[in-house]
């Protein structure tokens, strides 16, 4: 596993999360992220062959609710929190491509 992470890796991850990072931050995070990855890679020293992946830290399954309508929120209240609204809808800037 990596004991260092390239600046490009950090920029790529930052871009995926839409984070604006400075060159100084790239350098700082490269070191920090590499330390996190190194820590995780310690696990690789163990034989986890027989251990099922952990899906959730709590030993719970099947948390379900009945299919019944519950009150939502007032549209005007929510739209008032949005940067812009029009015709009862959220107004967003021009979208540059179809949805992925």
């Amino acid at each position, binding site marked *: 596993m990596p004991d260092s992470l390239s600046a490009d890796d950090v920029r790529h991850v930052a871009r995926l999360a839409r984070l604006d990072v400075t060159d100084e931050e790239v350098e700082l995070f490269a070191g920090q992220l590499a330390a996190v990855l190194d820590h995780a890679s310690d696990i690789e020293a163990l034989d986890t062959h027989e251990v099922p992946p952990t899906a959730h830290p709590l030993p719970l*399954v099947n948390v379900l609710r009945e299919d019944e309508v519950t009150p939502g929120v007032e549209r005007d209240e929510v739209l008032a929190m949005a940067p812009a609204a029009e015709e009862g809808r959220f107004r967003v800037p*021009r979208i540059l491509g179809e949805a992925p």
Partner: protein
Amino acid sequence: MSEREASGAGALDGARYEIVVGLEVHCELRTRTKLFCGCPNSFGDEPNTNICPVCLGLPGSLPVLNRQAVEYAMRIGEALHCQVRPSIFHRKNYFYPDMPKDYQVSQYDEPINVEGWLELPAGKRIGITRAHMEEDTGKSTHMGGAGRIGDATHSLVDYNRAGVPLVEIVSEPDIRSADEARAYVSELRAILVATGASDGKMEEGSLRVDANVSVRPAHSATFGTRCEIKNMNSLRSLGRAIDYEAARQVDVLQAGGRVVQETRHWNEDEGRTSSMRSKEEAYDYRYFPEPDLVPLVPDEAWRESARCALPPMPGERRRALAEAAGTDPASVALLVELDLDGLVVEAVAAGADARIALNRAANEVAADLEGARRLSPASFAKVVSMEAAAKLTATQAKQVLAALLAGESDDPEAIAARRGFEAMDTTALEIVIDEVIAANPEPWERFKGGDPKVAGLFVGQVMKRTKGKADGKAVTSILRERAGGG
């Protein structure tokens, strides 16, 4: 690279190339509420009136899985012969205005249903890779620029649909033509409607189809590079889009080019697909397990109850009808699709002639589906039996059936009596036939000589003199007898 002319679509060199298609069908589930919150799941409401902190992704809100959505997903899995398994949910991260949370909750590497199959009416089995649960996205409307995304000035977003439960059904690349793709979607739609999970409305977007299309030289063992086609909202546009896209790819290959893997958008008006975005930076959704949801582990009792909730599927109904009527399943697909199979099966069980029952159901009854709802199998069986026993001519039987469908009465005998439809007794019919023979000596010689063209003349004359009361088959058989043919 020049794009193929829209008018040339469908001109695939079928002898040299083979189409390979896999389909992804998104099916909105008919639950009362959304997948993870109690907001109504309802089409066509005022924008943003069915929203809450959970489906808006507001901080501090927690999703809780809808039991009925799981029930429907399991029914779909059972109906498609899948393994129904323990599953977990993941976050699929992407930034787009239709997802307020900036991720979509979906099932990734541990889906609820895997490895099933669907049988087309013609008998071919199409593999089902998986059928997993996920949430739907919101709906954006592009303002200015005639509603086209590229020319719009801004967009407006309605989150009523965000969080509506979906099951995405992914097929194996087993489909080999546009016709087969249409047959698959049409069969899948019938199955989804039968499970109760879907209303099957493609035009309202509750059933949406994406197609992975590639071509390869005939007899090739490997697949070509595929393109994913989106935005087809009817079976017809699905077929057109596949034919267009396959022909476009063949053009590219024949010009010595390479097909580029990409997502393409079907334009119904222009009849062509176009590239939606370049895959320069492949999408990296950074899937990770949704920490706010726990695993879903349906026990055997729940799965058994989902199986028991299923009515007979279309394939089973085709086989039952075919068996009852002594024909092959593919030929009765339409009757099952129109929900008329029960009528025929019951009529045949009540002793009606199967061939006549199939015929009348596929023609007269199918032409009046509204009326078919009040047609009882008993009176249908009765009118078919009257026709089979020659108590009614075919023409008379159709009229009695029309009266039954129109709700005039539910008693075929009363309807027939009211119209004066009574079987002509054979002696009376023979007298009329002898009169007609006597009046047409020259054609009669030709008939005896085996000229089939004059048969119609004799039957027509007899019908005219009996005002249509004579049974055509009886007339023909008496004519043959008189001609000495036996």
